[in-house]
């Protein structure tokens, strides 16, 4: 499936290549690029992958000397972010043969960037990242034409983004990622509901946090997009206000008190908001936090922690950025050249304990509010207030809308019910939040049906009256609003929610990407071999070998008699029954010596025993005389937490069922 999808994507590359050829010749003839900079041997490391056939290439790959020319002269790449990942990406791309690179970054260089953003020097502090990075690359790597944009991504429209073959993101905010994601989805064109592959611009996204990172390949409209996997991002940690205000326990609570409550009240530097980059401001917060901490005998408030909390600092180091940027650049190269089949589609990296990578296919969400084209039904009780609708839209894990604007159509006119982003409108419309969607007492159902998706505006139609709800196939193609007649036009009637998930500069949700630490989904297990064993004492022995690829923090286990990935702490602590290893109707009992568990129904006892220390051990078998059936469990592989895939042998699905 993935392979087929991908060839579509490549065909677009080829189409572009053809159309771009004439202009390139002109460019070269006109001396646009310094052709003399390609010294002997310069591209030897790259050419071998472009000019030689190989057994593992993409099926569409044709060895050719033209491919290098395509990279050098035609293929246009956009790098978003010139920070830790961005600096690495620019270097990696430039040394892989890409020359037409644009880079967008709205930030200036800070001293704390210098430990990893290797294109910057102390003398550059305060200058725009994009410009310094572009200068460095263009000077150091002859012939490279990096074009810097010291701007926000939101400052450009679709005509800008449309010019690129591939876009790579090295961002530190989910909001910006979603904005880019939305932009690329808005560029898709559908003919009779079928996606035109030439409208796809592949998005390669990287993220890091400390020693963890991820890299992913997104083919918008074809593979899982940012919004499809929104649940994977760790939620932002916010402390409850009552804890901060009246019962602090941690040093962080004291710092938040100074930041959130004391600063606006005391305005120590006049009427200006707290600036995390201003050392005087941090010092003030630090001093107040220390006072507060002393009052409650809390220890551990330091200047560094204060800074970390106020600026929501994410630890970062050169090595992780290098690894993730390298993986991303590798994928850009694969897609641009068809030399290999690209990553399908998600890589997790962690080198806290050993070195661990895990690749899996993130799945599209059928009703993804960004890329699915499938209208969503959202149900609210008749008594729901607009406030509740708003909360749902902003807090639901799969929507997480930023400042949605809610409008309705009343007697053919658009009317704003609530808009957060403009202060005056917010104040004017705030009373609407307390109103219920409908005041009548009869059994009315509300449903929000998504109508069309357009860049950063997701529209849902809210209707009431159950007979009015149409199936999703009724939704029209993009751009066109089809309003369904109202049951009772005198009421609020048709509610149109325009949810503008525009990235806001104030949004500072601190995540650099999925890092595997808070994954909810379990990994995958596949059966490698099944054994059904002879037996000596009327004890049947069955086992099967299963290979599980689990996320960090998980190991192979058993759930409902099937191999599964379970929380490592369960296995480490031998609370076997917490994995729910037994089938429905069976009772689970941990063996007295904790070496395994039994599943009991009636007089049938199925026992699974594991080695003493399942973490690091070699196959061993223990029988259990009491029951009719014995399963053998082998666990071999690496120690707990070392993270790599574990091999697991345990009760099989087929043999049990």
């Amino acid at each position: 499936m993935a392979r087929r999808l991908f060839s579509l994507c490549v065909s677009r590359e080829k189409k572009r290549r053809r159309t771009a050829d004439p202009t390139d010749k002109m460019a070269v003839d006109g001396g646009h690029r310094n052709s003399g900079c390609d010294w002997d041997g310069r591209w030897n490391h790259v050419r071998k992958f472009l000019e030689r056939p190989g057994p593992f290439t993409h099926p569409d790959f044709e060895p050719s000397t033209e491919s290098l020319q395509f990279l050098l002269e035609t293929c246009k790449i956009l790098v978003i972010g010139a920070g830790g990942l961005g600096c690495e990406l620019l270097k990696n791309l430039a040394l892989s043969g890409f020359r037409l690179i644009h880079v967008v970054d709205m930030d200036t260089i800070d001293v704390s960037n210098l430990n990893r953003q290797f294109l910057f020097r102390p003398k550059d502090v305060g200058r725009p990242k994009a410009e310094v990075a572009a200068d460095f690359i263009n000077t150091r790597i002859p012939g490279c034409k990096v074009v810097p944009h010291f701007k926000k991504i939101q400052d450009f429209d679709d005509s800008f983004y449309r010019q690129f073959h591939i876009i790579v993101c090295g961002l530190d905010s989910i909001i910006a990622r979603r904005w880019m994601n939305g932009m690329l989805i808005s560029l898709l064109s559908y003919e009779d509901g079928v996606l035109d592959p030439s409208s796809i611009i592949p998005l390669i996204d990287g993220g890091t946090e400390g020693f963890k990172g991820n890299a992913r390949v997104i083919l918008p409209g074809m593979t899982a997009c940012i919004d499809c996997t929104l649940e994977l991002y760790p939620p932002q940690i916010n402390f409850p206000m009552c804890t901060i205000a009246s019962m602090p326990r941690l040093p962080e609570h004291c710092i938040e008190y100074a930041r959130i409550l004391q600063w606006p009240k005391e305005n120590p530097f006049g009427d200006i908001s707290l600036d995390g980059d201003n050392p005087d401001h941090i010092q003030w917060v630090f001093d107040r936090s220390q006072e507060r901490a002393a009052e409650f005998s809390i220890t551990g408030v330091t200047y560094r922690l204060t800074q970390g909390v106020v600026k929501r600092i994410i630890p970062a180091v050169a090595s992780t950025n290098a690894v993730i940027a390298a993986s991303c650049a590798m994928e850009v190269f694969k897609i641009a050249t068809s030399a290999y089949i690209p990553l399908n589609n998600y890589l997790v990296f962690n080198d806290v304990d050993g070195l661990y990578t895990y690749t899996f296919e993130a799945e599209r969400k059928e009703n993804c509010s960004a890329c699915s084209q499938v209208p969503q039904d959202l149900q609210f009780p008749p008594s729901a207030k607009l406030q509740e609708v708003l909360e749902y839209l902003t807090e639901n894990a799969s929507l997480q809308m930023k400042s949605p604007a809610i409008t309705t159509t009343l007697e053919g006119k658009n009317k704003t019910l609530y808009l957060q982003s403009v202060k005056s409108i917010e104040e004017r419309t705030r009373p609407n939040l307390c109103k219920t969607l409908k005041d009548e007492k009869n059994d009315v159902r509300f449903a929000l049906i998504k109508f069309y998706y357009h860049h950063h505006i997701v529209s849902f139609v809210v209707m009431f009256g159950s007979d009015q709800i149409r199936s999703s196939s009724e939704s029209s193609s993009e751009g066109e609003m089809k309003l369904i007649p109202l049951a009772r036009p005198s009421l609020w009637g048709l509610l149109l929610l325009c949810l503008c998930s525009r990235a806001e500069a104030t949004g500072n949700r601190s995540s650099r990407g999925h890092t595997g630490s808070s994954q909810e989904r379990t990994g995958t297990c596949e059966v490698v071999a099944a054994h059904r064993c002879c037996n000596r004492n009327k004890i049947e022995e069955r086992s099967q070998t299963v290979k599980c690829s689990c996320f960090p923090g998980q190991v192979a286990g058993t759930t409902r008699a099937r191999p599964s990935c379970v929380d490592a702490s369960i296995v480490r602590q031998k609370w076997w029954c917490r994995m729910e290893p037994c089938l429905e109707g069976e009772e689970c009992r941990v063996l007295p010596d904790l070496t395994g568990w039994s599943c009991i129904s009636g007089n049938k006892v199925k026992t699974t025993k594991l080695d003493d220390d399942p973490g690091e051990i070699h196959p061993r078998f223990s029988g259990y005389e009491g029951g009719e059936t014995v399963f053998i469990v082998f666990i071999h592989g690496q120690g707990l937490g070392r993270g790599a895939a574990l091999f697991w042998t345990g009760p099989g699905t087929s043999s049990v069922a």
Partner: protein
Amino acid sequence: MAATQASKEQKYDRQLRLWGDHGQETLENAHVCLVNATATGTEILKNLVLPGIGAFTIVDGHTVSGEDVGNNVNLAFMLQNRAQAATELLQEMNSDVSGNFVEESPDKLLDNDPEFFHRFTIVIGVHLPESTCMRLGSVLWSASVPFLVCKTYGLIGYMRLVVQEHTVIESHPDNALEDLRLDQPFSEFKNHIQSYDLDSMDKKDHSHTPWIIIVAKYLEKWLSEHNCQAPKNYKEKEAFRQIIREGIFRKNENGVPEDEENFEEAVKNVNTALNPTKVPTALEDLFNSEQCNNITSQTPAFWVMLRAVKEFVHNEGSGSLPVRGTIPDMIADSQKFISLQNIYREKAMQDTAAVSKHVERLLQSVGKVCCKNASFLRVVRCRSLAEEYSVDSVNKDEITSCMDSPDSEMVFYLMLRAVDRFYQQHSRYPGVYNYQVEEDISKLKLCVNSLLQEYSLNVNIKDDYIHEFCRYGAAEPHTVAAFLGGSAAQEAIKIISHQFVPFSNTFIYNAMSQTSATLHL
């Protein structure tokens, strides 16, 4: 001087949050040696120079070629010595780091002055021919200098850590369980529990009692009713949870239970809270190891501390490790939380003092012990290259069992070994020039077969892999070099700082599928 310290703190802020000032200090005292400034080599060094290692020395006898400049951002001009050229550009990247270079091949140095390599904190050898690698490996092994071997070959990255023994006190585990001692409360904790009376509290105090106290209270009750057996299985724990739920505050005798978040927390935490306190098996093994039991004047500090911890377990600890001294955040008012936290903290300090006494006795001088890390102490041991390569001690089991699976990265290890063999025989790598590719396929196949034969490995390597490796023609694509540059640098930092756990002992990265594996060879 103070100003530079402050600016260093700012510059390194993002990493100080990972390994702390003491970790940074070890980095700043480290002297790293890189052999061969290829793209992979300089990328590794770049990722060590940026976080601020003390010094580096590049050993390289090559002259910069057009290919070198093509895939290396740290080389700009051809025809210079490669060590010198790379040193200049890497040095420029961070003025805190002192850079040195030796314009000589490692083989020459090994001939004339093998002790040259003894001075380094770690030696990183990149793209070494097998013979050089083995020679350097044995010099470093006997001098106990950690050796990291790295290679980028086409789309395959290879790393091998060669270190006799690497000890880690701060392994920074991801999912560490709390150390609460609910099953064996120490006396101060017991007294503290006694100071609470849930039944006579008003609503406010009741709903702000830390969950640890709640669990401890109901556990006491449970133990008295269940023959001193704590809830063990799911059923019993469910029953225990129910008892806690019934303890939720009610306005009157038959009233509806109020919302109490601390009780909800208690119910949620029953599972982890009832973890039996016990010395982890891995640590138990370390306690029983030779190094721990035979303390001599040569024993490294780690083992002395470990022995002290062991003594503590067998004496003051009555079978348990020193108390870690931290508790998680939980719903509680400030006073109740802080006093509970102090109970643990003070006990931890007391235990630390006890361990220090043991260290003192062992060393006759006080050693600083991080008792709070006692559960997570780790030792990494690697085999020597000689053991890996010897026909007698090759890890055949690992190789054959991995090769049973069709997608194992082990095949790339074997291919890399075959390529080394090819180099030994032909003094060049297979498929470097286009015209060589076809004929080299059969030559490389001979190398593969002779390798498998020599080690009597009954495994099958598909011709596709042989073809692919000839296609690579020893290319070192920058992206693969950069991946290795990041990961090898981090392993070097782990070795230098003795924080976080290094891989052991062979790592293979496959850029074609973006997969990797750690092998034990």
